[in-house]
């Protein structure tokens, strides 16, 4: 206490000086218009700069949320795309009827575990039965087909990646419509084999391979890749085609799980006719 008192005696004039300058500053800003405007402006500049810095930082922490909402929005928009709806009324006398019901709905999931260098690759998605995921649903992302759901638990589901020997996907060539099935031979993570394309079909390197829509898992015309090389093995009636995958399966993040609403009906009728 005594030291504090001595300190004040010794340096009191400095405290008084600072205090009075502060009082003057307040008075100047309070009672002088020109200085007040400068003060308010620079205060705004300073606080504006600080606020934008703070915003930058807090936005970074919100990125996760933003990405989630964007992915949800994408799913909603995909639902509205033409090839996800099923024409409920067929064309009658060339009058095109716009009535349609949604055949495919999309569910956003995040890949939480992934592999590409095993013989049979799988990945895990953070959506499960509580979100409506069922086995055999197709999975795509913005670059095309990714895989097919295999096992479903309450919160998570495991999917077979395209890089899995058990997976066969019905595909067609975009330019001439000839179709075949796509399978992985297990060597390169970006090369898949297209089988059963008959040798009379006219194909060339660079042709686009898309989903055929026959499989009930995927809507038609989803991009898969382009033809890398092809040749005709002696004694075979179909080409051996290597397809360069459009997707990079090593970098999966957000994926869409496709729910084909009419799938039960299709399976029922197909089972009936067997």
């Amino acid at each position: 206490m005594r030291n504090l008192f001595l300190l004040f005696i010794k340096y009191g004039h400095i405290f008084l000086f600072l205090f009075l300058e502060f009082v003057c500053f307040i008075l100047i800003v309070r009672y002088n218009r020109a200085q007040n405007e400068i003060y308010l402006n620079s205060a705004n500049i300073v606080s504006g700069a600080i606020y934008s810095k703070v915003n930058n930082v807090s936005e970074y922490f919100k990125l996760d949320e933003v990405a989630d909402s964007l992915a949800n929005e994408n799913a909603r928009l995909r639902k509205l795309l033409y090839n996800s709806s099923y024409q409920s009324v067929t064309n009658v006398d060339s009058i095109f009827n716009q009535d349609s019901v949604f055949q495919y709905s999309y569910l956003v999931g995040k890949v939480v575990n992934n592999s590409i260098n095993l013989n049979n690759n799988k990945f895990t998605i953070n959506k499960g039965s509580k979100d409506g995921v069922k086995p055999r649903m197709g999975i795509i992302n913005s670059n095309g087909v990714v895989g097919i759901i295999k096992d479903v638990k309450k919160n998570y589901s495991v999917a077979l990646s395209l890089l899995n020997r058990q997976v066969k996907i019905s595909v067609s060539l975009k330019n001439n419509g000839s179709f075949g099935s796509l399978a992985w031979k297990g060597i390169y993570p970006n090369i898949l084999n297209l089988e059963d394309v008959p040798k009379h079909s006219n194909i060339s390197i660079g042709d686009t391979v898309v989903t055929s829509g026959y499989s009930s898992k995927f809507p038609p015309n989803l991009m898969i890749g382009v033809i890398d090389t092809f040749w005709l093995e002696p004694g075979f009636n179909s080409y051996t085609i290597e397809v360069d995958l459009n997707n990079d399966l090593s970098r999966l993040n957000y994926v869409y799980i496709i729910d084909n609403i009419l799938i039960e009906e299709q399976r029922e009728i197909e089972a009936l006719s067997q």
Partner: protein
Amino acid sequence: MNNVNLKNGLRFILLVLLQIGVFKQITMQMEYASYFHLFIYPIFIFLLPFRYSKVLIISLSFALGIAIDIFYDSIGIHAAACVFTAFIRPTVLELIKPQSDYDVLLSPTVSNFGFIWFVTYATIMLFAHLLFYFSVEAFTFVYIGQVLLKTIGSFVASILFILIYQFILNPK
């Protein structure tokens, strides 16, 4: 003792009246007035006796500044400059200390310490005062060139009157 207080009190009133009654009016009549402000009132701070404490000097200067501000319609600006000038006064005095130390009973005037010493003292103090005043008036660093011009112009004009004041009313 009483005599010194009374003298400084009278000087306070005289300088405020001179400043607002005469020098403010002259400045307002001049053509290039914005570069040649006439400030005589800082001499009150220069001439305060040595025996006054730093705290008292700063307080008196603040009062002087506010008094001037009331008439200049610039509350706080002159006061800020006065407080600053009062604050640096001991440092300046220490800087230009003559061979023989200051006599605590005296005041820093021409008659006590000579013309050259007083001109040095008044120059440093007035220049600091004006520079601080115009900086606060501008309130931004954007017009630093103009602030310097105003300081130099006003300094040349004001130091003349301050020296004249010292010679006319030489407080012996």
